[in-house]
């Protein structure tokens, strides 16, 4: 298509990249030292004129320093394409030279955060798998350049390109505002709340550290205990607090979903899924069929009523990549028809619906009860020693039914079935998850049996894939061994590449 972009010579990013790098650097610094800034603003009036001048000078110097640094990073960041390899030179003082073969490249993603949106450049991320090499992120390219770069890299990939120039087709899936609102209102709000708490705890710890450092811990402690003691004394406050918590949970779900999935659009092109989504940070991901290891289709009772579910695609991760950037791609708000279309795209001619479900042995339920028994025992003991009051055992009236409900649900929803090429594992308690895994994508397989399971002649099967484990718990030893042998047979005779 566009031959004006020449990648055979070393070249730099778009000049606007300096700004992106600069703001990125400043953002990082601000994130680490925001508390200093906070202190500074708080004590603004108490700082003498001369110190203030020094502080301004210091800040000015730092700003300049980071600008120079950003400029140097930009200057030294060069890349080219040669011999079906992407070659990257970077580093100001310690230089790194990276060369990645095209067939190692898993994904080329475009991303735009707010700043990149304003100055109209795209961030291009090149993801690799199976190697411990760092991921490559080019911070700023014009859309034309980015497109051309992607084209240049994918042109060699399996020799399918020519049609790609044809753009602007009808999206396969588009989730509008109302649909997204539906999705977010039916989210697992408890999870959202926990996520929010995790963020707040991190926040609190940072503040706590600061006060400790200033020797003013008591101040914070007394502030908190003052406020909590008021809370404890009033039932109305507690109820109010609970209602507030619920509202916060729902709001944070909505916020989270909209931030991540706003304007979700999916195209199907050349056997790949192109996914665009995001509010402040626009993400575009190309999901190649072959690179997907397994998918999970999930729903919950309310979503089921509305006929929507979400699909999680798992791609290969390399062992050294930290867990944060797990290559999980999620699309929400899929209708049943779309779900089955995606299934057909990824696993064509594999219809698992004709096969019977295999259920786990009843030992699975027994084990869950057994484990929960100990958990409940610990909860009870903990409660008792915390409050030293026999009334706390009354809480069991609430806890027990919840446990029983969850265990029975979990047991009922557990099943597995498989066709010639595909394994389907169903699980969940309140939510329902269906995981599809082609046998040949398994990396290694484990059979686990505890001494208790040995008595019942059941065992756990664990499939290790390049993107995590999939477990089938408590099935009869005979069946487990059959599947074990069959899986190995499938892997060892498979000619297809797993990524």
């Amino acid at each position, binding site marked *: 298509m566009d031959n004006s972009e020449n990648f055979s010579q070393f070249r730099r990013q778009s000049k606007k990249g300096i700004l992106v790098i600069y703001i990125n650097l400043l953002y990082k610094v601000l994130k680490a030292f925001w508390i200093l800034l906070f202190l500074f603003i708080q004590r603004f009036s108490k700082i003498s004129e001369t110190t203030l001048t020094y502080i301004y000078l210091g800040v000015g110097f730092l700003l300049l320093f980071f600008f120079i640094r950003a400029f140097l990073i930009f200057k030294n960041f060069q890349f080219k394409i040669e011999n079906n390899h992407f070659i990257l030179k970077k580093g100001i003082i310690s230089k790194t030279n990276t060369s990645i073969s095209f067939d190692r490249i898993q994904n080329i993603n475009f991303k735009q955060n707010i700043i990149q949106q304003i100055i109209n450049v795209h961030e291009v991320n090149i993801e690799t798998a199976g190697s411990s090499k760092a991921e490559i992120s080019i911070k700023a390219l014009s859309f034309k350049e980015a497109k051309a770069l992607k084209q240049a890299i994918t042109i060699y990939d399996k020799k399918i390109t020519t049609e790609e120039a044809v753009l602007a087709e009808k999206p396969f899936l588009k989730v509008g505002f109302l649909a997204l609102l539906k999705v977010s209102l039916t989210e697992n709000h408890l999870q959202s709340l926990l996520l929010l708490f995790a963020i707040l705890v991190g926040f609190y710890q940072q503040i706590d550290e600061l006060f400790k450092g200033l020797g003013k811990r008591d101040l914070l402690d007394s502030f908190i205990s003052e406020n909590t003691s008021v809370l404890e004394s009033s039932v109305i406050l507690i109820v109010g607090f609970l209602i507030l918590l619920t509202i916060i949970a729902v709001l944070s779900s909505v916020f989270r979903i909209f931030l991540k999935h706003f304007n979700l659009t999916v195209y199907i092109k050349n056997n790949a899924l192109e996914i665009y989504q995001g509010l402040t940070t626009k993400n575009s991901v190309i999901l190649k069929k072959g690179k997907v290891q397994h998918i999970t289709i999930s729903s919950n009772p309310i979503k089921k009523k509305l006929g929507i579910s979400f699909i999680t695609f798992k791609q290969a991760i390399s062992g050294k990549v930290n867990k944060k950037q797990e290559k999980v791609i999620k699309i929400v708000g899929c209708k049943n028809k779309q779900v089955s279309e995606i299934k057909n795209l990824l696993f064509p001619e594999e219809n698992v619906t004709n096969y*019977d479900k295999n259920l786990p042995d009843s030992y699975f339920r027994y084990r869950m009860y057994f484990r929960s028994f100990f958990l409940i025992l610990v909860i009870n003991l903990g409660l008792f020693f915390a409050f030293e009051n026999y009334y706390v055992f009354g809480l069991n009236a609430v806890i027990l039914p919840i446990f029983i409900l969850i265990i029975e649900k979990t047991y009922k929803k557990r099943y597995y079935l498989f066709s010639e090429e595909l394994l389907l594992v169903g699980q969940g308690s309140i939510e329902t998850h269906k995981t599809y895994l082609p046998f040949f994508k398994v*990396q290694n397989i484990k059979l686990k049996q505890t001494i208790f399971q040995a008595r019942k002649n059941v065992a756990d099967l664990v499939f290790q894939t390049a993107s995590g484990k999939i477990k089938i718990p408590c099935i009869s030893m005979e069946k487990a061994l059959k599947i*074990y042998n069959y899986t190995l047979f499938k892997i060892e005779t498979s000619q297809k590449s797993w990524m």
Partner: protein
Amino acid sequence: MTNSFQNILVTSFPDISEITFKNIEKKYLNVIIINTIFIFLLLFIAVFFAVYKDIFNLKEYKFWLYVLYTVILVFTLFIKIVGFKKRKFAVREKDISYKNGIFFKKLTTVPFNRVQHVEIDQGPIARFFGLVTLSVFTAGDSSDDLKIRGLLSKNALEIKEFISNKIDG
């Protein structure tokens, strides 16, 4: 529940339960025992120190504490010795398997065409006995791949060579 497997089971597949597993080197038992005793020695020092300084007000139960310590030591050694016999491996034409455990039995198989790389390393005590550890890595979460401790370095090299040939070929 009908057995959906029957549909597919036209040919007989190589059966993992029918292959003969090899034991690892007998000498490795020494390594295990020395390692265990070393850990318990450290533990003994800790217990002795705790009793001597009377940190947890346990002085009056001194006798029972030492009895408990001995029981745990004997039990652990017993488990380790019995468990040693359960550590077995097998190399087939297309995969490598390892099994271990008494109370928690585990059998792992890694097909060669999924192996990323093979590593051989050696701890200080194992070195004294001329033994090595063979680790086979696959893609993904490598912490949970296959690891065979207590092989003669000659054998381990042979296996490594064998797998490397299979990967390249």
